[in-house]
């Protein structure tokens, strides 16, 4: 039987094509457009080639922000993942308290970023904040608006407070999917608590943990609202992460060209790191687990 050629079938993918074009491709292309042009106002643009990219690659400002960003993501991953697992391991398995814990754990996830920033902004204030005032009363020289270290600690604690629940809930779901027989077999084999974690729980959680790490990495790498509300990037530039810097450049200084070049590189960095994460973890998973 001959296949009839029917080019009309292409129309079937047209809706998706239009949707993706308007939601992703066209906006992205406008950014690409700005990245290769310069303007002196009056809506007159002229070709600038790759000079904005060269400029940005040589600017200390971007490298510093990238360095801070990587450090921030590394720290919160190093805290939130083990802490989330620990919380999940200690959550009740069933009954009223299990549901109670799940609800309480979900609460921080439901609070808008802006509000989280505001909560901690007030919480940490030395004059009226519960945390700031208590620390000051205890004799600590704490002030997140003036001290770089204090600002970092506050931003990190805020992120841990906001997002550890996500890791914990995912890890908890992974743990709940382990059949009882595994624990019974481990008892019969006289496995220690550590061995149960290392050889049963961790391998069974590997899949969801991979998703948790990936989500937390991408999210933390793009963080904007919470530190912006809390510290505004300060003191100085101490907590100016990539997004904050980008917004300053694009909207504060209205440097459209450099900001566009910056955001394209930002985008590529996130994609590249996520891809590396994903590839490494899936091959690890296939070869011998974690």
């Amino acid at each position: 039987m001959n296949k009839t050629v029917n080019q009309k079938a292409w129309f079937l993918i047209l809706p998706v094509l239009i949707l993706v074009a308007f939601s992703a491709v066209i906006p992205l292309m406008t950014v690409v457009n700005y990245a290769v042009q310069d303007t002196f106002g009056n809506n007159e643009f002229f070709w600038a080639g790759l000079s904005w990219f060269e400029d940005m690659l040589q600017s200390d400002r971007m490298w510093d922000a990238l360095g801070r960003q990587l450090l921030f993501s590394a720290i919160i991953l190093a805290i939130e993942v083990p802490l989330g697992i620990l919380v999940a391991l200690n959550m009740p398995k069933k009954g009223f308290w299990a549901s109670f814990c799940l609800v309480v754990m979900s609460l921080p996830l439901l609070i808008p970023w802006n509000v989280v920033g505001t909560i901690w902004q007030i919480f940490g204030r030395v004059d009226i904040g519960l945390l700031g005032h208590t620390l000051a009363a205890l004799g600590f020289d704490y002030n997140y608006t003036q001290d770089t270290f204090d600002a970092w600690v506050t931003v990190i604690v805020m992120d841990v407070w906001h997002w550890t629940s996500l890791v914990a809930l995912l890890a908890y779901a992974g743990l709940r999917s382990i059949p009882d027989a595994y624990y019974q077999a481990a008892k019969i084999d006289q496995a220690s608590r550590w061995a149960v974690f290392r050889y049963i729980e961790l391998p069974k959680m590997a899949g969801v943990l991979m998703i948790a790490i990936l989500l937390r990495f991408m999210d933390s790498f793009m963080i904007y609202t919470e530190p912006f509300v809390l510290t505004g990037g300060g003191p100085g530039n101490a907590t100016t992460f990539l997004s904050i810097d980008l917004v300053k450049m694009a909207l504060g200084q209205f440097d459209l060209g450099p900001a566009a070049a910056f955001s394209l590189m930002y985008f590529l960095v996130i994609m590249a790191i996520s891809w590396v994460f994903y590839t490494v973890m899936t091959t690890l998973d296939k070869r011998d687990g974690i």
Partner: protein
Amino acid sequence: MARITLDNLAHSYLTYPRGPEDFALKELNHDWADGEAYALLGASGCGKSTLLNIISGLLIPSQGRVLFDGRDVTTAPTAERNIAQVFQFPVVYDTMTVRQNLAFPLKNRGMEAAEIARRVQKVAAMIDMEAQLDRKARGLTADAKQKISLGRGMVREDVNALLFDEPLTVIDPHMKWELRTQLKKLHHDFGHTMIYVTHDQTEALTFADKVVVMHDGRVVQIGTPQDLFERPAHTFVGYFIGSPGMNLFDATLDATSNGRHARIGDATVDLTQPYAATGRVQVGVRPEFIRLAAGGDGIPAQITRIEDVGRHKIVRLHAAGRDISALIGEGEAIPADTDRITFAPQGVNVYADDWRVAPGGESR
């Protein structure tokens, strides 16, 4: 290896059981002889897994004691009982190799490396997995994984008993036979006490020396496969074991002949031996012992359907107000004018209130 004694054992999942119906496992006394292979057979929910979990120590019974070689282990934790268990779904440590899996129970017990290596090698030979020792366990098939869980038990040479909880559920049909044969051979060669829980009568009858049939939380019969077939102690054993199961007829014993005859409907059946029974009396005859006849004595019957299952034919009949089955050999002809059935005398059992009545009058 050990003799396992169950002394007055019973279990209820409720904290305050109010009557016998609240017990998942009703009172039970039994000795599991050292080195024998037992099958624990029963329908789902009959209490067989409860019993197994009590023996393995995952569950503490609400009454009675469990003894291993006379030592009370009722409340001892699983690890202390030194038993091995193979579960319904293969339990292996995915990230370890087969070798590490087999060595794991020994390593946890702090055994020295040379001894571990020797035993792992030996067990690998026993379960026929020497070639795969250095492969990761996660990529293996379900039957290979079940063999590893079995090996993890046998690697401890002093293990008291090997327990199996429906271990062939997830195994492909053609591998089931092979694994069961291997298991039987291992039992023959090494003489571990084995307790095998299943709801599959073929598995139970081919695997075990003794089959323990459970029904509704109670052990209804313990016996060899032949006992269960020829002399089912309870009507449940009768229809649960055998394919198709035993035919049961409501009957009344004929007092005038000292209970040598029973009336089923309008017909009279010669029981050849005297019986005395009270309560609801039933006559049980396996399909293998039902003969088809035309005219003469016997219970009037009409053939409703004939199923050819290869080695024999199953004849479905309607007799004495109920549907019954008869088995006849492949080569045997079925008389076209069949209108009666008779019973082969050696295949007749009499039941009173579901329990078998021994001939000669004394009740079970």
